[in-house]
Structures are given as structure tokens and as C-alpha cells.
């Protein structure tokens, strides 16, 4: 677990992200940001507030609604020495830019025989919440996870969000940085001093011995709640947040599995073909003999997200579902 240094200050997730951008833009004048409504308006979730004032309209500016075009512009700027941070309002809209991410950004370094680099961060936001319905509620990290050449980061706390965004901006490869729409107002400790969280280091959000629960992004707070309930019922869960899915900190996961011998993976994305399946397959290949029961994946239903709020709750794992699934895993023997 990365130290929270001598922190005292509490920030919201969105404020932590804002600080990361500010610090990195201050440090390196090659860093600039663009996206829809990010300048004067400060972004839909206020992550970019105040940056226009501080850094001016050459480095903080709004884009037309041309997601594919301006993402490609980010790639081109990155290829020629800049460090763009491109914002796409919803991860759902990244479906318009995958040519630039998958066929271009992810491939240049390799196709050029290591002579080109694309140090770009693609910030976006996903997950279910507040009745935004089928086209604004997806969790699509599995798509990026599958593509060699892309890094993939999904922070769950203000502390992680800041440290990882700074690392992402300094990374020389394209990083897909996915925030969660329900986390922006969450508060947490963030030190005043500068810190960076290297990509590829999982965080043990809670130590435990009876089962390993792996979760990321918006599922982490729910899993932490469930872990408290489980504790009262005599099950001491270890909660692991990989924080970056690519690179994935397999070691921390495997070590935990060896200790607890039971695994539950909780993902908000639909169950079929999610990142959880891959983590399950890795655990299985690398720690088969330690497993006391099958790795269980609790995922979203295989269906688009409904508009109606009561039904919306049914499609992604809730605290009670996590508690139930954890018990199934532990008592399955």
C-alpha cells in the first residue's frame, strides 16, 4: 500500500485530478489539454476548472464536436513532442475514436521500430449512475485492455487519481485514463507534497485472510462497504484494487490468492468478456493449486443500461450482491 505520506488534507476526486493537471502543466509546458467544454466551463465534472485562467487559451481550449478528429490531433501533437491530455466526455463516445487509439496511437511505437512515441493521455469517464441510460452508462475498459500498446488506468480514490494521473502524463506511451461518474465528489486524503504513483502497482485497500476481492474504479467503494459487513459476519476479506489494469500487478494478486485461497472479482462492466475474465484466467493459470474454490466473477448483467432508476440498480453489482457472492465463494467448499 502506497503511503499517504503525512497527509491531513481532504480533497474530492475531481479536485485531486485538477491538482494533478495543474502541477503537471506547471512543470512541463509541453502538457496541454483539450476537450469539449473544458476551458471556460471547466469541464462537465469541474475537473479542469481554473486551468484556462492559469495557463491561457493556447494550452487549455475547447474542441468542436469532432471526437475522432481532435483525438487524432492529440496523437499528432504527441508524436511531435507535445504531451496532450485529451478529454472525451463519456467512455461511450470513445467508440468514435478507436481508430486513432487502436490503429494509430497504440501502434506507432511498434510500427516505427521504436522510433516514434505517443505520450498522450486520454481522460474519459464511465460507469452507471443517475439515469443516463444506455449510451452514457457503459464500462468499456475491456476494449482498451485487449490492445497492445495502450496503458489503462482506473483510479478509485482521490489519492490514487492524483498520483496516477501525474504518472500517466509522464508516461511515454498512450494512456487511457478512465474516471467514474459517481466518484467525482468522493473525498479522501491527498497530501500537500508532490507524489506519483507508478503505473502497475496494485493497492491493497484492506488486508484480510479469508478471501481476496479484486475490484477497481466505481466498484471499490461498494466492495469496501461489503467488506465491512462481511467482517461483522466473520469473513475477513482482502480488497485489492489494481488501479492500473495495464500494466497489471499480477504479483500482488497472486500473492493474495495464495494466502486466502478464495477469489471474488467484482466488475461493473457486463460479465461477458470483461477484464475480470482475464484476471480470472491468469489466477487460474498461475495459482491453480492454491484455489480452494472457483474464482467467481460478479459482473454487470449482459444487457444495456436501462433509463429507469430502479432498474438501473439491477444491472450493476450492489453492496448486497457483493456480500452474497463473497459468502458463496467462501462457503462453496
Amino acid at each position, binding site marked *: 500500500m502506497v503511503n499517504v505520506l503525512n497527509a491531513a488534507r481532504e480533497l474530492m476526486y475531481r479536485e485531486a485530478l485538477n491538482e494533478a493537471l495543474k502541477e503537471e502543466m506547471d512543470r512541463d509546458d509541453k502538457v496541454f489539454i483539450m476537450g*469539449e*467544454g473544458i476551458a*471556460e*466551463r471547466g469541464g462537465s465534472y469541474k475537473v479542469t476548472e481554473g486551468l484556462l485562467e492559469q495557463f491561457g487559451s493556447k494550452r487549455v481550449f*475547447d*474542441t*468542436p*464536436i*469532432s*471526437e*475522432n*478528429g481532435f483525438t487524432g490531433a492529440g496523437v499528432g501533437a504527441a508524436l511531435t513532442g507535445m504531451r496532450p491530455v485529451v478529454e472525451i466526455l463519456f467512455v*461511450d*463516445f470513445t467508440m*468514435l475514436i478507436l481508430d486513432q487509439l487502436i490503429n494509430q496511437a497504440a501502434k506507432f511505437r511498434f510500427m516505427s521500430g521504436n522510433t516514434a512515441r505517443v505520450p498522450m493521455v486520454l481522460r474519459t469517464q464511465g460507469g452507471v449512475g*443517475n*439515469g*443516463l*441510460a*444506455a*449510451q*452514457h452508462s457503459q464500462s468499456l475498459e475491456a476494449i482498451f485492455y485487449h490492445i497492445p500498446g495502450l496503458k489503462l488506468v482506473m483510479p478509485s480514490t482521490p489519492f490514487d487519481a492524483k498520483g496516477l494521473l501525474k504518472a500517466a502524463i509522464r508516461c511515454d506511451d498512450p494512456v487511457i485514463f478512465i474516471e467514474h461518474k459517481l466518484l467525482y465528489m468522493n473525498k479522501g486524503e491527498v497530501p500537500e507534497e508532490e507524489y506519483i504513483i507508478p503505473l502497475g502497482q496494485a493497492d491493497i485497500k484492506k488486508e484480510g485472510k479469508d478471501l481476496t476481492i479484486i475490484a477497481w474504479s466505481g466498484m471499490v467503494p461498494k466492495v469496501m462497504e461489503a467488506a465491512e459487513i462481511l467482517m461483522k459476519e466473520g469473513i475477513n476479506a482482502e480488497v485489492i484494487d489494481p488501479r492500473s489494469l495495464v500494466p497489471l500487478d499480477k504479483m500482488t494478486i497472486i500473492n493474495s490468492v495464495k494466502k486466502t485461497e478464495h477469489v471474488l472479482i467484482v466488475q461493473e462492466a457486463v460479465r461477458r468478456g470483461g477484464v475480470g475474465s482475464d484476471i480470472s484466467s491468469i489466477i487460474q493459470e498461475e495459482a491453480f493449486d492454491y484455489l480452494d474454490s472457483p474464482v467467481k466473477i460478479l459482473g454487470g*448483467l*449482459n*444487457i444495456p443500461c*436501462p*433509463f*429507469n*432508476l*430502479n*432498474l438501473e440498480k*439491477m444491472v450493476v453489482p450492489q453492496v448486497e450482491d457483493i456480500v452474497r457472492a463473497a459468502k458463496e465463494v467462501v462457503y462453496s467448499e
Partner: protein
Amino acid sequence: MKKNTEDFLVSLYTTMYKIRNFEEQAIKLYRQGHIRGYFHPYLGEEAIATGVCAAMDGKDYITSTHRGHGHCLAWGADLKIMFAELLGKENGYCKGLGGSMHIADYTKNNLGANGIVGSGVPIAVGAALGISIRKEKQMVSTFVSDGGSNIGSFLEGLNLAAAWKLPVLFVIENNQYAVSTRIEDSTAETELYKRGIGFGLESVRLDGNDVLEVHKIAKSFIERCKNGEGPFLMECVTFRKSGHHVNDPGLYLPKEKVDYYKLHDPLLIGKKHLIELAGLSEIDIVEIEKVAMAEIKAAIDFAIKSPEMSEENFLKFVEEY
């Protein structure tokens, strides 16, 4: 003034009035917590959907945008079922699964609002392609705003429709803003009809707040579409009478523009038509408005009282996936 002109002008005005008040009532419901999620009011742009749809017939098709209530109503939607959808009820147009951004009526050729800016355009082109393959006398109108006119989906769609000579009417609702982004900041050529010309479409720019002007031009283009002369593009200049969505106060909208469009309101212009061209009195108009308002109130009642889909019914949907 002939009787049918009067009827026609009354029906245009009634539609615009219903859209205006549907939105205003729905905003109240939103504030009361009855409606959730995204809600983009069509306030101030009523003349466009009204003028265009009045020139189409029920066998034609429309595709709409994220700001889709106006198109839906102008197309003839039932107020009750619309409110029910916005409230997430099972008897709504999409059983409460779609909501404001996805409202549609496939049984009546309304191919729906769309949460992805521009993505309705290729879909409209495809509906027209089907028409052309079947050799039918139908056409498709597709709506998009200034912001959406910068996205590949729209631009590719323009070219495809023109290359394939399809019966599509592209309607740009140029309200000069995409959320808070001014049109001057998103393009170097703010006269958007010129894009149509670049792809070989006959294209015009007009006052989108004057329902009669919109209707006149739409009518001619729509007829010509059905005669195989399509596609066409009309850029209707207009302005949002509110923020981008229900929670946006729109403080970035410049006062002069807001003031200008307060006077140049589509409903005021529609009223003027009623008085000057159809000879109606203010009292006649109040009467028309009363009837419409009563219908709206009854629809709200209906929607509030309607049930949501049960978890059981929802799980049946899930099984099919």
C-alpha cells in the same frame, strides 16, 4: 384568407405551443424529481420541427438529436406516452428503458432521439437508402445542430446521400451554440449551408424561428425529394431559449442575443401569423392554448399515475441477451 389556411396556421401554432409547454412542464417535473437523467429542452426552436414535420406524411421518417422532444411532438406523438417515457414508466414509448435521449416511436416511423451527437444522420441516410431500394415515394428528414455539423457522421452522411441521390432532407438547427461553445469557435465558416454545397447538395439558409418560412422551404424540398431530386439541406438559424440542459442556467449566452431572440420568439411570430394571416383574435388564441394546456396537464397526471416496469418483467428482457 381561406379556411384551410386558418386551420393550418392554427395547427402549426398549437404544435409549437404544445412543445413549449411540454418542455416547461417537464422541467418542473424534473425539478420535483419525477424526471431524472439528461434533459435537453427544445425551447426557442419550436418552429423548426413544427414547420418541417407539417410538410411530411406518416409514411416518411425522421431521426432526431439529444434535443428530441420537439421533433417527437411535431411528428405527432401522444403527450401521455411521451410524459410516461420521460418519467421512466412502463407504458412510455420505450417502456421506461430509453428516456428523454432515446425517445422514439418505431411503429410510426419516428426513428428516435439519439444520445450520440450526429449519429442519427447516417441512420436517416440508411432509411432513405431502403426507400430507394424499394422504389417507394417516401423521404427522411434528419435533424442536427451546429455542433453536430462538425462530426464525421454528419459529414459522411451528407456525401453519401448526395452520391446516392437519396430522398433526405438535412435540417441544421443552427442555434449557434454547442453547450457553451460558440459556433465561431468551432468552425471558420459559420454559414453552415455551405457544407452542403461542397458535397453537391442544393442548400439554403433561413430564419428558423419563422414557422411559415421553415414550412415553405421544407415543403418544396420534401416534394422534390419524393420526385427523386434529393437530397437537400436547410440551415435554420435559431437560438436556445434556455441553457443546454435543464441544470444549465446558460449564463454564457450573450445578453444581446438573448434579448433579440426574446422578441424574435417562434411563438410570438406564430401568434402574429394567426392574427395577421388567419384573422384570429387574442381571445381565440387563448382558447387554443387552454385546450392544449388541459391536454398536457391530463398527460402529466396519466404519467405520474402509471407504473414502472417490474423487476420480473425486466429480467425477461435480460434473458434475451
